[in-house]
């Protein structure tokens, strides 16, 4: 019998399962027989065992190969997304010209490029921020944390008075940029990095990327603060299991900067 003979294989597997269930029951471990088939069949020993064992091992090998391929693809995707992020940033700088980070048009172009990149890479993830109530709750918590220090500083001193008439357009583009950044960083890039090397690597990649890609816009002096903020946004992503929460915190903190500076 080989793997090309599934009917016979099925019969043998069913017999093996029954035997395993009986053995489990004899040991007094109720419920164990209801576990995944792979777990039960792993009781069987080596590659030179009966045909059933060979069948399972071949399948496991195929699964492992598929996982390796998926990881390689995710690694490539992670790298491509980071390069794409850099390209979008360069485009923003080129469009902004003398206006630098204040350019509304360049900000809109940047947001558009990020969203396009995210949709191309993983449109499902890009359109799935997570369960909205939980995301908003965690996001608001993150906003309070991000704004705590500047709020205390602002209450104890004087700040500039920006004209409110400029707020609506500014707020619109700020929202677009921050949400686009989160869709790409804590959404698509996060997922790719998790598949590639796991959650800790995803946290590291997105945090460092978040810190570094603000340097050309604001200078090196902002790196420490933005790395810390990136870590917090990554933590919100882990807690909420979606990019909605970091997007909420990121957006509200950006908007609060109109008053808290």
């Amino acid at each position, binding site marked *: 019998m080989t793997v090309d003979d599934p009917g016979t294989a099925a019969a043998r597997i069913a017999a093996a399962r029954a035997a395993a269930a009986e053995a489990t029951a004899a040991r007094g471990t109720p419920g164990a027989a209801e576990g995944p088939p792979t777990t039960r069949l792993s009781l069987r020993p080596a590659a030179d065992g009966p045909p059933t064992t060979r069948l399972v091992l071949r399948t496991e090998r195929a699964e492992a190969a598929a996982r390796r391929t998926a990881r390689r693809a995710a690694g490539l995707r992670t790298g491509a997304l980071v390069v794409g992020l850099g390209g979008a940033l360069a485009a923003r700088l080129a469009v902004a010209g003398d206006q*630098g*980070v204040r350019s509304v048009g360049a900000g809109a172009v940047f947001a558009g490029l990020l969203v396009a990149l995210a949709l191309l890479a993983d449109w499902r993830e890009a359109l799935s921020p997570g369960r909205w109530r939980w995301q908003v709750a965690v996001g608001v918590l993150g906003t309070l944390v991000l704004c705590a220090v500047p709020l205390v500083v602002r209450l104890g001193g004087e700040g500039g008075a920006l004209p409110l008439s400029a707020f609506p357009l500014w707020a619109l*583009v700020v929202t677009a940029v921050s949400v686009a950044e989160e869709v790409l960083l804590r959404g698509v890039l996060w997922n790719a990095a998790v598949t590639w090397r796991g959650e800790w690597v995803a946290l590291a990649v997105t945090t460092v990327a978040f810190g570094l890609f*603000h340097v050309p816009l604001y200078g090196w002096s902002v790196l420490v603060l933005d790395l810390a903020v990136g870590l*917090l946004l990554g933590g919100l992503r882990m807690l909420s299991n979606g990019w909605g929460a970091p997007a909420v915190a990121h957006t509200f903190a950006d908007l609060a900067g109109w008053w808290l500076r």
Partner: protein
Amino acid sequence: MTDGTAPAVPGPAPRGTALRRPAATPRRRALLVLLLALLALGATVTVRPPDAPPLYDGLGFPDEPYRWVSPPAGQTRTPQPPTPASATIEVSGGVSGPARAFSGEQGPQVAFAVADGAFTAPAGTTAIEMTAVPEAVPAAAPDGGVVVSNLYRLSATSGGTPVPLAARATVVVNLRADRATTQTVVVSAWDGTTWTQVPTRQVGTEIYAAQVPTLDPVAVVRLDQGVRATVDAPLPSAGASAGAGPDGGTGTGSSVGDGGIGGGTLLLTVGGIVALLAAALVVLRRRTGDEPG
């Protein structure tokens, strides 16, 4: 399957599920990361400027209204007064070090920068205090123009004694005008009786840079329609910029095109990169069986 009628071997995962979506995140790990982030954010309190926003991101803030010492006719007085820019310049072995400073407005109304050896420091000097202090504009108007900024008085002192600029040394000054204009604008120095135009370069929407060879007070002068400056603008490579501040809204940064690649070429290059990247991502997605729908 568990009914015993089909192979109990786990088949390939449904497309786009098992390998795409990570397992649910253990809350404990997330809380650990959040705790670390809180500690990191707490640590930034010591290094962040007092007027720093929650994070540096999104768009820079637009300029606040110009802060006048004494607003001209038609302009309103802001609640906050204009602020000075000041820097402490270290002196080592009789040679003064480099320094730059910005005033505190959003964005700064004055910034200055000096290079190594800009000052002739008296023996025993270890530090020089340099400031640019806003003052009311003199009543005497410049020929063919109007002053559109405060007058900024530059000074360098050590222990209360003025320190002169070294021979052939200059101070780079960036001044913000009250608003953007398409008319010719020049930085002008005021010697107490007359205005003298200084070669000026625009380095921001309403930011103008000049290299001044003295510490005379300076201001921004907008020339009347049709009036030309009596001095030539410096070459872009002259370095007449005090550099960008961290708030991104200063406009005091160097202008685009100071070196290397042109804006159009850069755009084409970036566009090409993005297009190639998009194509690569599409191919990758198809190869991993992650097609939409």
